[in-house]
């Protein structure tokens, strides 16, 4: 366990293998919540929080499953852990920080079905990460999500006012094309090697 491994995991999750633009995890909230800057930022931070916490919680759960020889139950168990976690975070925020709770609104429960959250937990298991690596991967994966959604939201805000799109490309298709160009830019990071 050294900081170099952690740094390369972190850089990998934020830039080289960005969850949205390279691995295609979490496209639904990326498209749905990116029309306005402030909701995009709120969503991004909520996802960082949930992804980090889910990685931390699912690690011992997975150890338990391996010990009981029940690895085939991983998908079912993880999704239940995530659903319970999101519910818990929701109640906790409502009691302690009501302003943040109201700002996130309906997007909070929707994090359960964000494939980036389940994806990061499954990838942790696949890559054989230990506890600290899992948490770092979860948190930085969330940071990558935040980065992509903030960039995308700012482009979309301008696009809505300034662009003349052909009629059939209005709305969703042009957003996808924009995201495609962003993905092209991010694929430039793929040659990046840290150590």
């Amino acid at each position: 366990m050294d900081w170099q491994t952690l740094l390369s995991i972190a850089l990998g999750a934020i830039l080289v293998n960005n969850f949205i633009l390279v691995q295609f995890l979490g496209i639904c909230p990326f498209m749905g919540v990116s029309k306005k800057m402030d909701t995009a930022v709120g969503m991004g931070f909520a996802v960082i929080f949930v992804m980090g916490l889910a990685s931390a919680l699912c690690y011992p759960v997975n150890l338990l499953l391996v010990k009981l020889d029940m690895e085939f139950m991983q998908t079912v168990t993880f999704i239940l852990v995530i659903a319970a976690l999101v519910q818990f975070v929701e109640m906790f925020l409502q009691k302690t920080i009501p302003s943040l709770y109201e700002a996130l609104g309906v997007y909070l429960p929707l994090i359960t079905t964000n494939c980036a959250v389940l994806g990061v937990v499954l990838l942790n298991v696949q890559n054989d990460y230990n506890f600290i690596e899992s948490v770092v991967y979860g948190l930085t994966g969330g940071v990558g999500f935040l980065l992509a959604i903030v960039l995308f939201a700012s482009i979309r805000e301008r696009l809505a006012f300034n662009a003349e799109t052909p009629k059939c490309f209005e709305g969703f298709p042009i957003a996808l094309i924009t995201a495609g160009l962003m993905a092209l830019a991010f694929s430039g990071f793929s040659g990046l090697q840290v150590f």
Partner: protein
Amino acid sequence: MNFGKQLKEGVLTQNPVLVQLLGMCSTMAITTSLSNGLGMGVSVLIILTLSNIIISALRKIIPDKIRIAAYIVVIAGFVTMVDLLLQAYLQDIANSLGVFIPLIVVNCIILARAESFASKNGVLASAVDGITQGLGYTLVLLVMSVIREFLGSGTFGGGILNGGEGIRIFPESYGALMMVLPVGGFLTLGCLIALMQWAQNRSKEGKK
């Protein structure tokens, strides 16, 4: 029960990907070769049909407040079954689809159909709905993977035809690698949805 009408809705007018805009992640991520598209499409078709049947059969028993959690458990059960079956019998497809098989659990199409259709309709209608919506999804995956594979690597039917190598249409070095990368997924899907909106606008104008 009107099978023809539901089929038309699932494949065209209410296509889950092109019109309802659900299930984007898997659509763009795995459509790099025909075998991937077909494997994913059929898996989702099977899971969607089975979970629709079970959820609609249990729709009067499941309490309203915990229905989403109950749906997810049903769906996750079927996903695990399909995952294990693929690993046992179709190892190649299971490897190339990787993490996206367990991620079918959070594919919005299945949860959306459970919530908006299966929880309100009878078992038979829900089964038909699962099949038709699944067909619509599979069709989009097939179209996308054919386009991306052709432009990206110059082959047709990779993983299935010609001993898994696919039929070569033009030399590989002429292919636009971009189309197999994530970029190609976004661009192809964007153009397909634009085509769909164009067709819808035209048919609306035609009716006037």
